[in-house]
């Protein structure tokens, strides 16, 4: 099995999000960076499938030179090959991102053969375009299903994948012939932490770089803004268990008792 996972470097999720003075970027001066959560699970899914079925895992990112940090992290968690598709600081809308990725994957496949499975994150934690994976899969002529939280391979490498999507009432099951693409969501697995041995190996891992040509897209960001904050006055119902009465009064008032 040859499996490719695509990841994106984003400011570490969870912290308060501030905007730079020119309103073009998230102010990441005081933030660390991480792999977008769904994509951390994409890497883990790829590593687990190869542990089970044999083969190798490549992790690719399109991003600034600093994204080497995220690729080396991936290399410390059992990934065999890391590839950077460098950006030049100009904007990449989803269409342009997908075109560059499809170009890069095409170059890699022409050199080393087809990937049996390409795993994307469902959407990036920051810009959240919800489309890059679908566009790349279409450009490569492969089947693609997004929002996957369960993934198995049957009859590899010529076989198919069983992909599960959670919906409110249960699970939808898809069966895609290989070669295929999927977009996964956090929760499909619990990504492993790097081992000491992995960390040491990742420092020596060769960083491959692929140049691509792509035109600016027609979706243009004007600026980032903080959503209007509703002025909130918190009503403190009390401190300690004596407040239970006031809480249940509230529950009665809201009609949920």
């Amino acid at each position, binding site marked *: 099995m040859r499996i490719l996972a695509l990841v994106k470097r984003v400011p570490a*999720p969870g912290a308060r999000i501030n905007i730079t003075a020119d309103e073009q970027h998230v102010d990441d001066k005081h933030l660390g960076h991480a792999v977008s959560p769904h994509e951390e699970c994409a890497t883990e899914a790829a590593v687990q499938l190869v542990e089970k079925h044999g083969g190798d895992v490549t992790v690719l990112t399109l991003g600034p030179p600093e994204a080497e940090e995220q690729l080396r992290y991936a290399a410390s968690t059992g990934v065999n090959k890391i590839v950077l598709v460098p950006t030049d600081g100009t904007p990449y809308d989803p269409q342009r991102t997908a075109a560059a990725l499809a170009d890069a994957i095409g170059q890699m496949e022409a050199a080393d053969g087809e990937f049996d499975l390409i795993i994307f994150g469902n959407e990036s934690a*920051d*810009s959240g375009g919800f489309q890059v994976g*679908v566009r790349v899969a279409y450009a490569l002529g492969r089947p693609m299903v997004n929002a996957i939280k369960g993934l198995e391979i049957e009859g590899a490498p010529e076989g198919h994948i069983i992909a599960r*999507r959670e919906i409110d009432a249960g699970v939808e099951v898809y069966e895609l012939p290989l070669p295929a693409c999927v977009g996964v969501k956090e*929760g499909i697995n619990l990504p492993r932490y790097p081992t000491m041995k992995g960390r040491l190996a990742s420092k020596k891992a060769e960083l491959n770089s692929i140049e691509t040509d792509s035109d600016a897209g027609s*979706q243009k960001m004007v600026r980032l803004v903080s959503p209007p904050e509703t002025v*909130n006055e*918190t009503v403190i119902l009390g401190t300690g268990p004596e407040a239970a009465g006031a809480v249940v009064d509230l529950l009665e008032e809201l009609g*949920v008792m």
Partner: protein
Amino acid sequence: MSILVIIEHDRGDVAPAMFEALTVARELEGDVEAVVIGEGAETAATQLGAYGAETVHHVTSDELGDYSPEAWGQAAVEAIKELDPEVVMTAGTDRGNELMAQIGARMDLPFVANCVELNDDASEMIRSQWGGALHEETTLDAEIKLVSVAPHAVEATTEEAAGDIEELEVEIDAGLNRTVIKDRVVMNEGITLSTAPVVISGGRAVGSAEGFAPLEELAGELGGKVGCSRAVTNNGWRPHSDQVGQTGTRIAPTIYIASGISGATQHWVGAMGSKNILAINTDPEANMVTKAGWAVIADLHVMIPAITEEVRKRKA
């Protein structure tokens, strides 16, 4: 101008977020028409006139059945070619965004996901980033503008329109059903985290998987569901399906009781659709406390059982 709304439905059940998208579509300058595809389309079609669809195009083909992102996506493309709209809109749900991405890929058109506001012709919009924690002002320059509406961006309202159903037969390649739903596993009978009127969540402060038992007890008394923060699922104390947040479930209960949760951005964007929020925390400065409508400054391990006891007393 015509605005074509691609209806996201599951065997005839229209996604609630679709009615919000139809409400937004009516605000644009133009006639609102809907497109229904696949199994149960006839049932879905009858619900759309009430939300302002003048015409509902029922797209048929021998190859269309249960949901398949590729087959439905190509069917939508055929309908767009036939009907020639200026704007194509859907709801920013998993399926809605997936379908619109398929359309964008197949027609080589840009697609702007999760808009919260649009101008008259969808050439300028505000869209959501970081699950709604950040907004982006965007311009879109395209012959046909593809957009999805972020769930909960507006309240759905009705507006009676004709809702005339017109048949539109299209031809699509049978091979596209390689992505059709093969099987379904029904797991949740009854209420779920996203539909529960009461959600009671615990964060890292709960301390262990067993620590959630008192939350389960209170949820049982109130007919609610138990949720949790990302820290909890990362610790393996609860399954990921219980996670409230940007990478988990978006909830919208009548009341959300967040106990021992500091309120990181990632969690907040999943909880902010709640109609009322009660925070239980020992830290009066915690994000969750300052953002909640109500708060109790207390240790959840003492407070949750005290609430359960009071509920039982009043019920008796």
